[in-house]
């Protein structure tokens, strides 16, 4: 069952793997933005996660430890952002951009001497007979555990935001920090935790790049994935499950265009590779014009700093 020389089952399976880093980084950023904070330093946190995860995996000989290290590395770097924006009240856009600059430099310094080393392998989860199911087995049941974990994280974020008190408080802080403060919530503390979560997720995504997607370390390995994650959050209009769709769409188009080329289809590569961005803009326009701003679901206090005057 090939379409245009491409087996759709294999294609879907590949795009699921290709989308993991941007999906993780995007779901982290979604939580940060839900709390009313705009952290543009995703790329910096991802690449720090990539190198920290790599170093730890190489030293411990365990890929799991590597992912833990990636998450920690990303979280520590995001703390710099958190301290600056929440306590020193710096502008979030500028601080986020500076964070990326710093993260790229730092990762390359940490990474000296790690070129050409192979990290411990992350293998496919043994799902036994499930993996043998035709088509569905190929698509769903032959992945490594991080693919499933990343989907579980999306589900968890969705559930927490929707059903729990924590989610409610988080959203309240993002909608109106003054009102949340008046109700007695610790706005700054909540935002710091959101930022840390965002950093950890970006770091995890980065570690997936250096440990699974391209199991190696080279300078600049994330090559702009963090910026795409930012676009996905908007594409998803701040809804967790749409992050999944957005990540598959963005990851998918790259994989699809490469597959089309490999299958010998004549396609204008440059135009196809700009299509996800144009689609996102289109989606943004439709969603923001359709039912007014509420439909867009953007946190009202996004990007604004909070200082308790009382």
């Amino acid at each position, binding site marked *: 069952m090939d379409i245009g020389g491409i087996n759709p089952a294999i294609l879907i399976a590949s795009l699921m793997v290709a989308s993991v880093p941007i999906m993780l980084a995007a779901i982290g950023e979604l939580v940060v933005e839900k709390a009313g904070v705009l952290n543009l330093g995703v790329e910096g946190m991802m690449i720090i996660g990539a190198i920290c995860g790599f170093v730890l995996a190489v030293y411990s000989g365990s890929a799991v430890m590597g992912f833990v290290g990636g998450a920690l590395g990303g979280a520590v770097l995001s703390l710099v952002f958190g301290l600056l924006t929440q306590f020193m009240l710096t502008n979030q856009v500028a601080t986020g951009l500076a964070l990326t600059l710093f993260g790229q430099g730092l990762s390359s310094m940490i990474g000296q001497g790690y070129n050409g080393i192979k990290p411990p392998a992350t293998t496919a989860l043994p799902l036994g007979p499930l993996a043998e199911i035709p088509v569905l087995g190929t698509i769903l049941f032959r992945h490594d555990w991080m693919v499933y974990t990343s989907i579980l994280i999306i589900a968890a974020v969705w559930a927490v935001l929707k059903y729990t008190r924590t989610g409610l408080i988080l959203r309240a802080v993002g909608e109106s920090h003054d009102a949340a403060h008046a109700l007695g919530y610790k706005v700054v503390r909540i935002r710091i935790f959101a930022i840390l979560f965002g950093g950890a997720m970006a770091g995890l995504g980065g570690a997936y790049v250096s440990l699974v997607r391209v199991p*190696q370390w*080279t300078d600049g390995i994330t090559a702009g994935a963090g910026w795409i994650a930012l676009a996905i959050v908007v594409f998803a209009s701040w809804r967790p499950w749409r992050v999944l769709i957005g990540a598959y769409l963005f990851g998918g188009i790259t994989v699809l265009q490469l597959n089309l080329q490999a299958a010998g289809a004549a396609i204008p590569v440059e135009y196809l590779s700009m299509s996800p961005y144009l689609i996102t803009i289109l989606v943004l326009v439709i969603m923001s014009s359709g039912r007014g701003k509420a439909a867009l679901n953007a946190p009202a206090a996004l990007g604004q700093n909070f200082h308790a005057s009382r």
Partner: protein
Amino acid sequence: MQRRTILKGGAALGFATMMGGKLAMAQVLEKVKAGFIYVGPIGDGGWTFQHHQGALAVQEQFGDKVEIVWQENVPEGADAERALTQMALSGCNIIFTTSFGYMDPTNAVAAKFPDVKFEHATGYKRDSANVSTYNARFYEGRAVQGHIAGKMTKSNKIGYIGSFPIPEVIMGINSYYLHAKKVNPAVELSVVWAFTWFDPAKEADAAKALIDQGVDVIASHTDSTAPLAEAAKTGGKVIGFGQASDMSEYKPSPRVSSIIDNWAPYYIKRVGALLDGTYAQVDVWEGIAGGEVLIGEITDAVPADVKAEAEAMRDAIGAGTYHPFTGPINKQDGSVWLADGAVAPDGDLLGMNFYVEGIVGDIPS
């Protein structure tokens, strides 16, 4: 009006052509300070890494008589011009600029510093007497790879990950395909353009796309080891080659051989020439013969007879008895490019913008 018509490939390029030799004859220098401008980080594991290896070899060779300085991550354009000027001001006697995009900045700065020697990699402009250009005939290595690919493929599908559709890359694709086809007429080539020199994740995706299409031998023209890492995941079903550096960490399979950019002999020769006063402007396009292109060890994953044939081809190219582009070769549209026995002129190769007959697909433009 100073519209400079650029020296078009065919006219001016030859095998180590000496130009204006007398003019540029320098005095003997006691101590040489050599500068290197890199487009990427030294840790890229490929292109820049290999240039830096060459720089270190210069230091090793001449010890106290040479001081080397370098600058990484220099963007092409205005920043390159400044980096070059500052290096010249710092007292460098010779500066190697190691990316095509440094061509105009190199020539502009060279005009201002007639006493400093400039060496530009992969370019073709030599506007003043102190600019030399050097390049390597990587397509010679591609011929050896193509031979191995044609023999090794079981699916009769081989792949090539291209960076940008420029003559350098197209030349490699044609050479690879021609030599695979020669030993395996049933072979089909899939080309994937990544439109990047360096993006490990995308390179891995490109390799995976090829593998999903049934390709089992992959050559890549991008800088990272990601395609090999992807091939390694298939557990020996798919093989590939090291690109720019040996990438020996993927031995013996999937990396069955490699093309190594070996700039050390050239750098040592040029700095040495400054030290002993024999320096002259050159336009060098060396290959296997000059040691600039090395074929990395062919591993035991390749059957002994195929390995022997590949090594014989390497030696024939090195000895000058075989040219990878020897007619009869037709262009993709079926028109004749090289008549029987004719050897491709260098000018044709340096401006190559067509596929040879048998390759399916169009070159993006």
